[in-house]
């Protein structure tokens, strides 16, 4: 496909915006979805920042992904003037995940969208036999 092994892209939707994210493992695809969300919000920080750990639960991989993105929406909306410096999924189980997020001050503010939440609409976490994972999720903006 000529695409890098890890990455994200935005998807079209009449009123909203989607993220397609992929990686060689589910962990990396989840991370890319989070990085894509921050990019969409114009909240990507370039410097190292303060790290915090969190965990979320879900009934399945899709539920976990929505919970992860909703966690990031909350953190980014309430961390005034800060953006996402890094996101690492440190543990990914079928119904829970553990992550470390680094938030840092935004030096050069970029224009972004206000994301209200992640939705379950046409949600997909597709895992290939060798572990490569592709995600599709729509956000309400």
């Amino acid at each position, binding site marked *: 496909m000529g695409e890098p092994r890890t990455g994200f892209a935005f998807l079209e939707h009449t009123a909203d915006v989607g993220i397609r994210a992929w990686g060689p493992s589910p962990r990396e695809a989840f991370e890319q979805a989070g990085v894509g969300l921050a990019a969409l919000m114009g909240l990507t920080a370039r410097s190292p920042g303060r790290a915090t750990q969190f965990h979320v639960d879900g009934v399945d991989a899709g539920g976990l992904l929505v919970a992860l993105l909703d966690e990031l929406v909350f953190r980014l*909306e309430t961390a*005034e003037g800060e953006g996402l410096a890094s996101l690492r999924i440190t543990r990914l189980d079928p119904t829970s995940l553990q992550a470390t997020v680094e938030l840092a001050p935004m030096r050069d503010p970029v224009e972004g*969208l206000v994301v209200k939440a992640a939705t379950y609409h046409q949600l997909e976490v597709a895992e290939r036999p060798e572990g490569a994972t592709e995600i599709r999720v729509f956000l309400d903006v």
Partner: protein
Amino acid sequence: MELQRIDDFEWSVPIGTVEGMRVPGIVFGSEDLARRALDDRAVLQVANVATLPGIVDASLAMPDIHWGYGFPIGGVAAFDADADGVISPGGVGFDIACGVRLLRTDLSWEPEVRPKIRELVAALGAATPRGTGAGGRLRLTRAEVLRVLRDGVGFLLDRGVGVPEDAERCEDGGVLREADPEQVSERAMTRGAGQLGSLGAGNHFLEVQVVDEILEPVAGNVMGLFEGQVCVMIHCGSRGLGHQVCTDHLATMDRLMRSLDIRVPDRQLACVPLAHEAARRYLGAMNAAANFARANRHLLADGVRASFESVFRRSPQSLGVDLVYDVAHNLAKLEEHELDGRRRNLCVHRKGATRAFGPGHASLPPVYRTIGQPVLIPGSMGTASFVLVGTAEAERKAFASTCHGAGRALSRTQARKRIGGRELARQLDEQGIVLAPGSPRLLAEEAPFAYKDIEEVVRSCEGAGLTRTVARLRPVGVVKG
């Protein structure tokens, strides 16, 4: 998938269009709008909603319907509250009680306001926090957030912001007493604490408008509207607080559905029976978020009054800056409706649809009881907005509902590809529309051509008998979220 013609403004989505439909779907609108709904795949969503347990009569779509997630935007669905009906947070949406408020004035565009429009828009821009991450006009403590959730507009009236008529002229008198602040999470309150009195972004706006034409003089007169008059329209919702309430309760219901063995064609349609404890909790939280939304618009209106006072150097009272009405277009409500000859208790979901009670309805404020409920329809940026009134026919045909706006036709990226924000600002300026400074990108995404023709939407609502058109307003100043 196809639509069957019922009449010029009503189209049926037959049972069987998707598996498991319990009732048919009905799309209101001209042939052109109905066809667009098909192309947009929104009709599939109308059919999906018709599969939900306890749905009565039909899954409805207003003429401005467009593709949403789970429920279509412009969808109306009623569920039996006395039997197996459900409630679905996705049928209300993330922006709980997003809505519209219209303020009138005694001022005319010519000669009073036109010479001062730039000064007025600058003042309104300064008084209206907006865009991404904007803090509100008030920063609240946790205890104060709780009071807003419980008392709605009353919280601000107690602090001397606004006048009692501002509450009376809101749908529900400015407060939903069924609100249960305890069902609102700490997270939601944290998001809301800094955002009371802010527009947000997207299609939200504050506009200075001129009444272009009065089409129903009697109703126009009751609302205090006249041709050439300057008004202000505010379109916004419950901000991060409402978004978080939806997020929290949607996640709960997504989990619960498995144990309750409820199957839905799209996970965003997650729902639980109205009799379930989780439904009671969601309704309490949703009503609390609606109180926050109403207070949010009330506080923004206070900034409008202050702006008029600073520009015209007269008190808002002497300028006649009064509230016409305030409506929500994302809400679920327990209402009584007549169905098959008997009164039924229903939970009516309106997602991108406005309640439209006809004349004489007991829940209307006395001043509007003879004309029917005012319905406020915001246009897209640079196009006309409308004031309508509800009808008895809307009560019979559509659980007293009508459209909410133009409805999107193009995605945000498609809009941006066609025009840059600066070019659009220049074009608006040429049309005589003054713009308060904001984000060029977000501006381009809200370009007028990204939306359906509002005139056709309003005409369709009238054609279908859901509302009558009272007044048409054109924008002269825009403060964009």
